């Protein structure tokens, strides 16, 4: 059975000031199995973030349903942890208290909160930074903290909306390895939105390609690369073959997007 089931989700944003309404998502179906690591790849403005936000419960779909373990999703909840592209650590809380935030909201006893927070902080390589303020951290460290914060709730599904998009290339590659390592260990179900083809292939068990706006799922490709994956897989022939195919798929859509804007 599917863990997460997206059925007929469509989203139209109402037009403002007599402008025509914007159709962000065509009716979209996606079945996500337990332990899937799905990357959603698409040109910017294709509605991939909208789809993720609908799953998170932050956006209400115009039509369709999302169910998680058979229960319909109507609002955000700790069963779907999310990491955003923007830095969303609470600046008034220490790194540790940021990770404790969700646990505290759910009424977990303080001693247990601290134990869980420190465990996940160690896992994302931030041992020793527990008492730092977010403003003292680099972008990569902030996103690692945000990842630990989402993981601390032990969510059924982890939603990541271009979480490494604002980071420099080298940091970004290390973050991908870190996330992949965590997934290989915990086997979380992950939905990861990106527009970076290498990133999409490297971490995914399936890459879902979305078309230009209005977004719909254009193809769904299983990535059959062995685990554990190291960064070296990026130079393998199999990786290159996936990259060649996805580059073609994305290129067509990007050209469509450009022509739409022209």
């Amino acid at each position, binding site marked *: 059975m599917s863990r997460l089931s997206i059925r007929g989700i469509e989203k139209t944003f109402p037009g403002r000031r007599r402008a025509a309404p914007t159709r962000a998502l065509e009716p979209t179906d996606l079945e996500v199995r337990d332990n899937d690591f799905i990357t959603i790849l698409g040109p910017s403005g294709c509605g991939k973030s909208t789809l993720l936000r609908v799953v*998170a*419960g*932050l956006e209400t779909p115009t039509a369709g349903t999302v169910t998680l373990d058979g229960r319909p999703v109507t*609002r*955000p*909840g*700790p069963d*779907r*942890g*999310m990491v*955003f592209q*923007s830095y*969303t650590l*609470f*600046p*008034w809380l220490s790194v540790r208290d940021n990770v404790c*935030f*969700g646990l505290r*909201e*759910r009424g977990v006893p303080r001693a247990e909160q601290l134990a869980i927070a420190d465990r996940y902080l160690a896992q994302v390589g931030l041992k020793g930074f527990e008492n730092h*303020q*977010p*403003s003292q951290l680099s972008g990569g460290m902030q996103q690692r903290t*945000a990842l630990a*914060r*989402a993981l601390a*709730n032990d969510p059924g599904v982890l*939603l990541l909306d271009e979480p490494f998009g604002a980071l420099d290339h080298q940091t970004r590659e290390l973050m991908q390895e870190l996330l992949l390592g965590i997934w290989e260990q915990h086997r979380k179900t992950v939905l990861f939105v990106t527009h970076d083809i290498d990133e999409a292939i490297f971490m995914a068990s399936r890459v879902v390609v979305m078309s230009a706006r209005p977004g719909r799922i254009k193809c769904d490709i299983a990535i059959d690369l062995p685990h554990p994956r190291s960064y070296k897989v990026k130079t393998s022939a199999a990786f290159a073959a996936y990259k060649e195919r996805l580059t073609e798929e994305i290129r067509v859509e990007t050209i469509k997007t450009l022509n739409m804007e022209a």
Partner: protein
Amino acid sequence: MDGLFAPLKPVPPGLRPVLGILCFVLFFLGWGIVTYGGFVQPLFLASPGETLLKGGELFVEYGFAGDVLVTVWRVFAGFALAALLAVPLGILMGAFKPVEAFFSGFVSFARYLPASAFIPLLILWAGVGELQKILVIFIGSVFQIVIMIAVIVGSVRTDLVEAAYTLGASRRGVVLRVLLPAAAPQMAESLRLVLGWAWTYVIVAELVGASAGIGHMIIEAQRFLDTGQMIFGIFIIGMIGLITDVLFQAANARLFPWAKGR
């Protein structure tokens, strides 16, 4: 010299206090030149020395310390009363848009009513005692605080709110543990501003029907054409304002260290 005047370029740390003090020095210098130089008659503008002398006289012979205390008490009582009502209302308006829709029109209207215009009415309602003075401050401050707090709370970053929801925060949790701490530094800053305005209302209130206070002293001094006393009274208000402002700023910096430099 050329390097100092590039737009938005910070001033070297050592130079900052020097420039600030220089402004005061020039002010007193100019004042001294026009008075001691005989450019204006002493009747219209007392010299710095004369003002200081009159000030000493006021404290020693006329119990001016009592007047100062009375005025300070009125300002803080009226301001505290206004903040007590306006801060919670402003928070509700900022957080809940229907509350804002209900109040914002009326508050915007009331904000433009000059507090001094209420003095005759307030005398009718509350007499010429302490209550009337405090109510003038209250009316002058309360609507300003409401609007400012509402705007500040309403402009808290939505991605922080969304992050909190995905971590399992309830609506109540979002208000208490995201909106409030996120808005707190700016709320304190706006209170500091309004406290400054409250000082302008108290003197107006004390010019009419008062038997004590700095404003009352200034009116008395006018009867005797004692410009020294009048100027000293005004000067004292400025000094108290400066001191409370510095204390307020120091308290804000201490309470919200994470907000510095924003």
